[in-house]
């Protein structure tokens, strides 16, 4: 089934979005406890990029770390480095951008993957129940404006870190997705992207969403336009959430096959598969609404009056 959740504060001051997402995901964990993850967004961009990099499971972690740091130093000014549960978190000062970071680090080695790059985004994921997420990173202490999260029931691909969600839309700083459902034209789309030289790291159909959105943005579409286009370009059952530095949104398949509920108040927008997660995390405020099928929506940060421009 998978559980997906999202939260966007309409206030400028940082909110405990890490705690809120953990509460929502814990409530949804019965939809699938195989792996869990969150994409957390700081209120303001940091001065440095944060890169999360997956380390190989075998070999000497310290040696891998040395190699990755040496590679990163070619494309940017390496700052703080932390190793956490199979992941390396590196802060980079002035650098050549996400594409260059990926080229430097991934270098044809199947095992090393840039999990995320961004100035607002911290993308934390791990195998296991959402309760265990804080063992990887102090998620519950994170304050920011918005976040999306995922708790996974694996149906068609492996349970490991690479196959866990959220997925970073590789190459686009601060853009992440979480997905509930099956993209049934995944293999066809994947072949098309592979012929163009896009590298996939998992056999999880959800990985295609970030690749697709990155491609649409690269073609000049706005995120809102890309969400709309995806309604017809993806087949199958899907409710997916997307977030970047200033917005959070959803897209839902034409048949409305996967659940999706939103609650909007003056203070926040909350999205989840099931209303119970929103109530568990945020109480009784606001009226829950389930949209129909073939719909998308994007909310921007800021008070309600702000136009939801494309």
């Amino acid at each position, binding site marked *: 089934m998978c559980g997906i959740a999202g939260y966007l504060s309409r206030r400028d001051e940082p909110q405990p979005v890490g705690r809120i997402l953990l509460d929502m995901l814990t409530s949804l964990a019965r939809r699938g406890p195989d792996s869990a993850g969150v994409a957390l967004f700081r209120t303001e961009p940091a001065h440095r990029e944060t890169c999360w990099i997956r380390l190989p499971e075998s070999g000497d972690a310290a040696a891998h770390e040395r190699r990755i740091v040496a590679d990163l130093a070619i494309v940017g000014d390496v700052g703080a480095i932390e190793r956490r549960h199979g992941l390396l978190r590196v802060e980079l000062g002035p650098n050549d951008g996400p594409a260059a970071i990926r080229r430097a680090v991934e270098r044809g080695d199947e095992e090393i993957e840039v999990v995320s790059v961004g100035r607002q985004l911290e993308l934390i994921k791990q195998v296991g129940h959402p309760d265990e997420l804080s063992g990887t990173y102090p998620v519950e202490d994170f304050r920011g404006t918005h976040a999306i999260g995922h708790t996974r029931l694996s149906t068609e691909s492996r349970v490991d870190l690479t196959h866990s969600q959220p997925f970073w839309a590789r190459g686009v700083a601060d853009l992440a997705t979480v997905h509930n459902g099956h993209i049934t034209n995944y293999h066809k789309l994947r072949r098309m992207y592979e012929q163009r030289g896009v590298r996939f790291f998992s056999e999880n159909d959800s990985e295609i969403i970030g690749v697709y959105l990155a491609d649409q943005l690269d073609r000049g579409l706005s995120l809102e336009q890309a969400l709309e286009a995806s309604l017809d370009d993806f087949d199958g059952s899907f409710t997916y959430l997307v977030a970047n530095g200033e917005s959070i949104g959803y897209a839902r398949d034409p048949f409305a096959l996967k*659940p999706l509920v939103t609650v909007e108040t003056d203070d926040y927008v909350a999205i989840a598969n*099931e209303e119970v997660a929103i109530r568990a995390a945020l109480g009784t405020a606001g009226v*829950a609404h*389930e949209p129909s*099928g073939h719909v998308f929506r994007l909310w921007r940060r800021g008070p309600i009056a702000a136009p939801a421009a494309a």
Partner: protein
Amino acid sequence: MSGASAPAGERIVDASERPIREVNRDIRVALADGAPVVVRNPGARHNLGVALLGEGSVRFDGSVGYYCAGMSDGATIHVGGSAGWGLAEGMLTGTVVVDGNAGNSAAASIRGGTVVVRGDCAARAGIAMKGGRLLVGGNAGYMTAFMMQKGIVAIAGDAGDALADSMYEGTVFVGGEIASLGNDTVVEPATDAEQAELEAAFAQFALARPPRFRRIVAGRKLWNFEKHELETWRAAL
């Protein structure tokens, strides 16, 4: 059960931090005693108030999750918030009123009784209905009344795509716009008698209603297979 007594003999059941099975058992015990029930802190949890086989009044003080009031037979159930998937699925008789919105498949396969949703219904409301009434104060989504067999679906607002697709029998009434009709459906003006009946039904539940309804019924072309109508079947399937 908290056991706290409220005015008019109401029985209060607090659902917070308790297994749903216990909550439902407490509701059944109260109804058997003839006491109206108020369920506090429903928290949008699933399976609340399922299989209530008898008359009586139950009010949920907030949102409910999936399958609330499923298989209900006679109870009057009021939801103070929104409802998740499969609201009142398979209901036999009774009344279910939701103040907020309903998720997918509201009133699926009901055989009788009345389901009222003051707000919007998501996709497939009234799917495979076999009797009874579904009254929607707001809009209804994709494939409302899909394969409906009997009864009434009345939507004050707009209807989504593929309305009443492949319906066998029954009547769908729409006050607002219809995004698109499903296969083998016919749109007609509602008769004066139907209009009066709908006005009374909407007034009974204090629902705002449009000035005039249109009705959608089965075109009956899919009832029997006719080789010369092969194209109709191709489109439907």
